[in-house]
């Protein structure tokens, strides 16, 4: 079954700006895919629709077979708990420790301290930052902050991870490490959708690529087609 499905989705903002136009695609359960395109191509809007930060103007967005337009305001928080999000500017809270930042989704979901501590430590261990749990995020480097953001996104064990330019401000080596983390999550069955315009990085990885331009689907490259060349250039052109 498709994990995420866009069915002829359009999104226009008041004032007439058309962010997405008649977009249709599917992400399968356990799939990892890149979403690429210039800034303004509609990548962020697409992710916002999945997170219900925005609602589609036309068409349907389905996650786990559920039409998001049917969710009431009261159900939105529970939908968001099933999706882990990593932001470009990581959205960490500097008034609390790394541990508390990662613990936030668990506190919201209603975990008791003992369970919570175990899970937070596991998530921090996974991103290699267990030794920093008591520090404030402001003391960490950009790459470390991004990894705290990833720990927070996965601590609740979501079945779907979205990332919006997760390597935006990082050097190639750190970017590769971050991508490696996402691949590890994907290895255990988690669906991952990463919006990125880092074409070098995307080109070196052998995953599916969905390219957007001006809110429309420009082209796709299936996983394992990296060596085919032609379709890669078709994507990079976007």
């Amino acid at each position, binding site marked *: 079954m498709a994990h995420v499905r866009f069915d002829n989705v359009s999104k226009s903002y008041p004032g007439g700006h058309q962010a997405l136009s008649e977009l249709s695609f599917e992400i399968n359960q356990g799939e990892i895919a890149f979403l690429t395109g210039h800034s303004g191509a509609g990548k962020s809007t697409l992710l916002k629709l999945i997170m219900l930060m925005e609602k589609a103007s036309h068409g349907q967005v389905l996650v786990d077979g559920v039409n998001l337009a049917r969710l009431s305001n009261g159900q939105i*928080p529970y939908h968001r708990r099933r999706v882990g*999000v990593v932001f470009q500017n990581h959205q960490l809270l500097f008034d609390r420790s790394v541990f508390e930042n990662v613990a936030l989704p668990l506190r*919201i979901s209603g975990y008791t301290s003992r*369970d919570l501590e175990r899970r937070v430590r596991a998530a921090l261990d*996974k991103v290699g930052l267990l030794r920093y749990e008591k520090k404030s995020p402001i003391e960490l480097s950009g790459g470390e902050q991004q990894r705290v953001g990833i720990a927070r996104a996965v601590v609740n064990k979501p079945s779907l991870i979205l990332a919006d330019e997760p390597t935006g401000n990082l050097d190639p080596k750190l970017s590769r490490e971050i991508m490696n983390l996402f691949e590890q999550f994907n290895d255990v*069955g988690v*669906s991952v959708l990463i919006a990125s315009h880092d074409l070098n990085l995307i080109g070196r990885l052998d995953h599916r690529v969905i390219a957007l331009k001006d809110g429309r689907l420009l082209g796709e490259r299936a996983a394992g087609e990296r060596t085919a060349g032609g379709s890669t250039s078709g994507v990079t052109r976007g």
Partner: protein
Amino acid sequence: MAKNNLYSKVTASGGARQSRITLQSRWAAYVQHHKLTAVESLLRLLKSPGGSAMTWVVLAIALALPMTLYVSLENVKQLSRAWDQSSQISVYLKANTLPRFAQALTQDIQDMPTVAQAVYISPEQALSEFSASTGLSDVVQGLENNPLPGVISVIPKLDGKGSGAVEDLELALSQLRHVESVQLDLLWVKRLFQFMELGQRLVWALAALLGLAVLLIIGNTIRLSIESRRDEILVVKLVGGTDAFVRRPFLYTGIWFGLGGGLIAYMLLSIGLYWLSGPIENLISLYGSDFVLQGLSLGDSLLLIFDGVLLGWFGAWLAVSRHLAKIKP
């Protein structure tokens, strides 16, 4: 790095495990989060002691003012109860009423529910009291027969029932056999009750106005707090925080403000009453009254503090519902 231990239990069905939290542990976590939020909100207030103290004192003044009026009114009521005791109705009997009828009538009146005490004063007694108190014994002795009627002196038992009860009693007494007329200085009793009524309404009006002020003060404080924690609210909403979760710290902040305001108001009132009690008791003892200045009862004190908490919570709730909806991720 322990590889994959985070997702070790995740199968192809993804993160389905996360929904398997038992109701019991969910409740435990809910209570735990309430405690945590309460403590965090308090610590946050104490982190900026100057600003918080200022808010607390303003709230305390707003809460203490109507309570001061209320305590004053309660004391006047107590004083007026003493006056009720001294307000008496004189029931004049018809001339030539036989003493045994008069005695029986006195007993009947004594048995009425709104009567505290009824005392029969015979014409002879009245005459001798009159001559003794006026010093006109020579004149009295010169009289051929006693011109004074028998009187039953009645002290009503009103228990603050208002002036209507006195009038009812007066009417009942005047309809009894052998009664010539009933006399009562009702006007001052009426005035007193009117003043108390007025006082009571003033207390309510002032309490309503200042209660509104408390709501606005707390609402505004919480609004600023919401603005300063905007980022946090956004993140909490993004990772699936419900509205109740987002509201919780602000509601606790309101409760702490209200509780602090209520406690300080209680202290202000207690100090004020203590400060006034000396002079008032001296003044009252000069009038030979056994009036004792009433402080705040335990019930009133708890009510004051509870009102503070309630207003704090409600003010925060109003502010949060108004402003939180505007913060959308």
